[in-house]
C-alpha cells in the first residue's frame, strides 16, 4: 500500500501540489486573520480593569475550541445562509479556522501583556512615557515571543482541521482523504494524511525559526550570560 501511495504521489505531483497550495491558502488566510484579531482583542482585554471581560473572552474562545469542526462548519453555513452570504466553500472554513486559531494567540497575548515586569512599567511611567508609548515600545515588543508561540500552535492545529474543510467544498488536501474514503482507496487516504502531517511539521519548524528571528535580541535566551 505504501508503494501505491508513493506511485500515486509521483504520478499526480502537479495535482497534489495544487491541493497543498489550496490548503496553505486556507490556513494562512485564517491564521492571518486570527493574529490580527487576537492581537487587537488581546491588547484590548489585557488593559487594567478589564480582568472580568478577559476571563469571559478567553472562556468563550476556549468553548469554541471544543466544538467539533464539522459541527462548527454546519453552524457557520446556517448563519451565512441566513445572512444571504456565500455559505459554502472557502468562506465558512476560513471563519471556523480563524475562531479556532484565536484561543492560543489570544491567551498568549493577554498573558504576556499582563506579565510585563512591574518595575519595567514603573520605570517607564516614571520617566514620562504615556500608556500608549509603554504599550507599543515596551509591552508589545516584549510579548512578541509569546504571540509567535501562540501563532505557531494555532497554525499546526489548523493544518489538521483544514483537511475537513474539503467536506464542504473548500478544497485542499482533505479532498484526497475524502475521495479515498468514498472509493475505499487506502492509498489516497494515506497520501492525503501524509501530506497534511508533513505540512504541519514543516510549518512548525518554519515558524519556530521565525519566532527566534522575531524575538528582540536582548531577550533571546542565547544573549544571556
Amino acid at each position, binding site marked *: 500500500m505504501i508503494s501505491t501511495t508513493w506511485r500515486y504521489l509521483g504520478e499526480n505531483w502537479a495535482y497534489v501540489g495544487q491541493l497543498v497550495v489550496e490548503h496553505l491558502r486556507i490556513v494562512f488566510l485564517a491564521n492571518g486573520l486570527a493574529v490580527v484579531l487576537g492581537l487587537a482583542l488581546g491588547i484590548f482585554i489585557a488593559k487594567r480593569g478589564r480582568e472580568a471581560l478577559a476571563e469571559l473572552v478567553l472562556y468563550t474562545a476556549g468553548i469554541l475550541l471544543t466544538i467539533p469542526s464539522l459541527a462548527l462548519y454546519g453552524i457557520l453555513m446556517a448563519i451565512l445562509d441566513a445572512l444571504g452570504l456565500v455559505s459554502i466553500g472557502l468562506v465558512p472554513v476560513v471563519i471556523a479556522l480563524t475562531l479556532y486559531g484565536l484561543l492560543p494567540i489570544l491567551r498568549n497575548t493577554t498573558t504576556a501583556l499582563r506579565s510585563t515586569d512591574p518595575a519595567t512599567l514603573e520605570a517607564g511611567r*516614571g520617566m514620562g512615557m504615556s500608556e500608549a508609548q509603554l504599550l507599543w*515600545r515596551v509591552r508589545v515588543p516584549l510579548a512578541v515571543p509569546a504571540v509567535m508561540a501562540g501563532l505557531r500552535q494555532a497554525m499546526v492545529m489548523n493544518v489538521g482541521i483544514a483537511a475537513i474543510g474539503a467536506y464542504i467544498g473548500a478544497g485542499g488536501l482533505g479532498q484526497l482523504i475524502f475521495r479515498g474514503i468514498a472509493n475505499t482507496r487506502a492509498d489516497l487516504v494515506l497520501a492525503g494524511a501524509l501530506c497534511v502531517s508533513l505540512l504541519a511539521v514543516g510549518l512548525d519548524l518554519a515558524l519556530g525559526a521565525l519566532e527566534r528571528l522575531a524575538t528582540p535580541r536582548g531577550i533571546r535566551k542565547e544573549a544571556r550570560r
Partner: protein
Amino acid sequence: MIELRSVTKVFPGGARAVDNVSLQIHQGEFCVLLGPSGCGKTTTLKMINRLVPLTAGEIHVGDRDIRSLRVTDLRRRIGYAIQEVGLFPHMTVAQNIAIVPRLLGWPAARRRARAHDLLELLGLTPADDYLRRYPAELSGGQRQRVGVARALGADPAILLMDEPFGAIDPITRERLQDEFLRIQNEIRKTVVFVTHDIHEAIKLGDRVALMRDGRLVQHAPPAQLLSQPADDFVRGFVGTDRTLKSLRLTAVRDVMGASPARARIGDTLVAAREAMDKLGKTVLPVADDEDTFVGWISRTVATGSGLVGARVIPYLVLGSPGMPLNEALALMLESATGQLAIVDDERRLVGLVTFETLFERVRRPPEPPSASEVQP
C-alpha cells in the same frame, strides 16, 4: 526647588500613608527620606512625580504646582531611578539611556553622544562597548549604574531615587555610594533619595528627613540628627552606636593635632626620655631626617643609652588626612601604641590621632551649618 506643603496621602481603603508633611528641598541639595518600611517615604517620593496622586496639600517643583503641568512633561523633567532598576530588556544600554531624550525629540547623534558621556561619568568604560550591550549581559552593579545613567539621560535638574543601591551586595553598594557622591559633587542635582539604611542616609545626605507612620519626625543635617535626636524614636532609629556613626562624618584632617611632637632616629634615648617627660607622654612618633614616619618610641623601650633609631617600634598601620574618623578608630585599635600616625603621600608625618582626640570630638560634636529645622 522642591516644596511640599502639608502633603497628605490617604489610599483607597483609608490607610493614611503620608500625613501632613511639609518639606523644602533646596537647589543642589541631597535630601534623604529615611525611615522604617511603611513610614511613607516612598509614597512621598512618588507624589513628587505624580506616580502617586496626592490627597491633600500642594507640591511645587521649581515654582510650579506639579498639577499645573502635563504629567508626562513633569516626569520627563525629573530623573527617576528605582531599586529594581527596570531597564527595558529588549533595548540596548544606549537605547535605555536615551529613552527620555528620545521622548523629548533629541536627534539621534545627540542622544548617542549623551549616552556615551553618561556611561563614562558612571565609570562604565569603554563606553562604546557598553552602549551595544543588552541589560541581560550586565552584572547587577552595572545594571544599577545604567539605571542611574538613564535617570540622568536628559540632564534633569531633579533626581528622584528610590533605594537605588538597596539590592546590591555591600561592597558594590559602598563603591556605588562613593561614586555617586563624586558624581553629585560634579553635577549638583537636586536629589531626593529614599532609604531605610541609616548608614547610607548619613553618608549621602546633606539633610535627612526621618519619617514615621506617615509623619515627618525630624529634618536635619546628619550630624545634628545623630547629636540632637528630636525624640526617642529618632534616638532609637539612629541606634545606640550613633556616636560611632557620627565619627564617619568627620575627616581626620579636621581633628588631628597638626605637626605633632616627634623624636628623630638620630636623637639619643636620653633626649627622647626627656622629651616624653616634658610633654607628659609615654609614646612618641619617630621620623627620619627627611621627616618620613618610621615608627614609635615608648618609655618602656627607650631605656639605657644609645640612639632612638636602634629601638624604634615598627608601625603596623598608617592613617591619611582624608580618612573618616570611624576608619581611623578601627586602625587605632590595631595599632601597637593605640595612636594613629597620619602621613601624607610621601609618608611624611603630618598629624597624630589619639583616643583623647576622639573623646574630644564625641563630647563636642561639630556645630551644624544651619539653624535647626526640626518639624513639629
